[in-house]
């Protein structure tokens, strides 16, 4: 059966490149043609690097022909969120308020590592302004939509990455995650993503949002592909087993408290119960756990994140207030609402939460929660959503406060037919355990193999 290359995994592409079934140039050309057709709908690209991608693909093919093999990402197209510096073009952060002198046109460390591994950087991907403001939709900034239903949000803020993966416009992306920006679009677009342990992947050459919460991480179709990308950008080995993974001996902590609000999707509990049953079938021991100081931790996250966000933008914000979108500037301004002594007190709460979470991970190997309580909203619904209600539906921020590795994998459809995500969290530094458990889940489910009709109908 022929492979649909637009929906192929990194592993499938790698095998085809090495067996001469496919060249990197052929793949890049196919994806460029596909982007020409679909990106006006999906709105995934901020900037495309077609010419440099073609040259990089040609170099990758020539190297493989000469026996030079740089590893799993050799010749594989990768898109990057438009917060990461690349030598090809500007880093806009999807903002009209940016000073071009802030960000040199050079590669950040993650991009340098990707190129050294033979990856083909195909373009910069859309987000909301600096990862926190309003989405585009203007002439300058495309509006990213959800390929499962273009009237819906793809999740944020790595919106273009999630949307583009789901639309079959490339097999791998690099996102950033300060409060869930890798995991939320992964959940809402039916793809896979990992926020690594804080500090594992360098953030040099990445426009910050809130420095003590910022993570750079992989977005792809599967956890196995996320492992391949993480190995490159973290510069250390990460692998998952090719054979069916047994989880005998692992303890999975299941969290329900605070994660099933009244506003949750009607099918969320059933999807989550099904996912938990999969783990039980792998031989893992499943136990119920609670997260310490949950509501206070989210309050602490909010206060610290807003303060750090304002700290980075304050000088520019005073001078170019009206050039930021209203959503971004009004969020940044909230960083002025807590005092320095309160900031210090909140940091003590963060330390206390971290200690208790470390103790919890002495009892379990992985914690499982829904990634969000709901699937993707319609754009027309979003303006009317109460911020407190929305925050109560996103279960990602707690893990930015603590820095633990956290992944999202598809766990089936919501009542709307849109994808829902399963969040898997590990102890600090236990990224490989998270990848392993997510991979074991995907070995036993097929949700990650589903593609939206937009892509399949308008595809080849």
């Amino acid at each position, binding site marked *: 059966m022929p492979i649909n290359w637009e929906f192929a995994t990194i592993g499938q592409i790698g095998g085809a490149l090495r067996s001469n079934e496919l060249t990197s140039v052929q793949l890049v050309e196919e994806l460029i043609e596909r982007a020409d057709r679909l990106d006006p709908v999906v709105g995934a690209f901020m900037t495309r690097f077609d010419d440099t991608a073609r040259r990089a693909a040609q170099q990758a093919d020539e190297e493989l022909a000469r026996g030079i093999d740089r590893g799993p990402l050799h010749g594989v197209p990768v898109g990057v969120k438009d917060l990461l510096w690349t030598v090809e073009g500007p880093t806009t952060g999807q903002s009209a308020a940016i000073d071009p002198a802030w960000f040199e046109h050079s590669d950040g460390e993650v991009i340098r590592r990707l190129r050294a591994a033979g990856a083909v950087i195909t373009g910069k991907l859309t987000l909301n302004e600096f990862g926190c403001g309003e989405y585009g939709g203007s002439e300058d900034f495309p509006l990213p939509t959800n390929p499962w239903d273009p009237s819906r949000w793809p999740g944020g803020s790595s919106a273009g990455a999630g949307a583009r993966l789901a639309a079959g416009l490339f097999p791998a992306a690099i996102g950033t995650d300060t409060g869930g920006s890798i995991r939320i679009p992964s959940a809402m677009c039916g793809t896979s993503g990992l926020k690594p342990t804080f500090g594992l992947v360098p953030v040099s050459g990445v426009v910050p949002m809130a420095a003590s919460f910022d993570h750079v991480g992989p977005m792809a179709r599967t956890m196995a592909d996320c492992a391949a990308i993480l190995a490159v950008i973290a510069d250390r080995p990460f692998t998952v087993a090719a054979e069916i993974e047994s989880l005998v001996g692992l303890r999975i902590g299941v969290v329900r408290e605070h994660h099933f609000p009244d506003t949750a999707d009607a099918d969320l509990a059933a999807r989550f119960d099904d996912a938990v049953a999969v783990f039980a079938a792998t031989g893992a021991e499943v136990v119920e756990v609670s997260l310490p*100081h949950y*509501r*206070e931790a989210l*309050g*602490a996250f*909010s*206060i610290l994140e*807003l303060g750090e966000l*304002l700290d980075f933008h*304050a000088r520019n*914000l*005073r001078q170019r*207030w009206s050039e930021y979108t*209203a959503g971004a*500037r*009004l969020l940044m*301004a*909230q*960083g*002025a*609402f*807590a005092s320095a002594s*309160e900031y210090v*007190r*909140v940091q*003590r*709460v963060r330390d*206390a939460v971290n200690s208790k979470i470390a103790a919890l991970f002495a009892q379990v190997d992985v914690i499982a929660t829904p990634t969000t309580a709901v699937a993707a909203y319609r754009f027309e619904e979003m303006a009317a959503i109460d*911020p*407190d209600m929305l925050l109560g539906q996103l279960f990602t921020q707690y893990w930015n406060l603590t820095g633990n590795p956290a992944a999202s994998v598809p766990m089936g459809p919501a009542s709307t037919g849109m994808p829902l995500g399963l969040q898997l969290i590990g102890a600090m530094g236990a990224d490989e355990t998270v990848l392993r458990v997510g991979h074991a889940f995907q070995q036993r489910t097929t949700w990650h193999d589903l593609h939206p009709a937009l892509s399949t109908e308008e595809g080849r």
Partner: protein
Amino acid sequence: MNDEPNRDDVRAALARAGLPASESEIDLLVAAYRRVRNNVRAIEALDLDG
């Protein structure tokens, strides 16, 4: 402490930070200000040793 923060509190906080928000934006930020202050109060009430 003012138990019911209002637009004057918001205006003062923004002025301290040098942020040139309009009066209509200050109105929009009152609810956010109350949310932040409520978070601060909840955290101050937390028994970290408990």
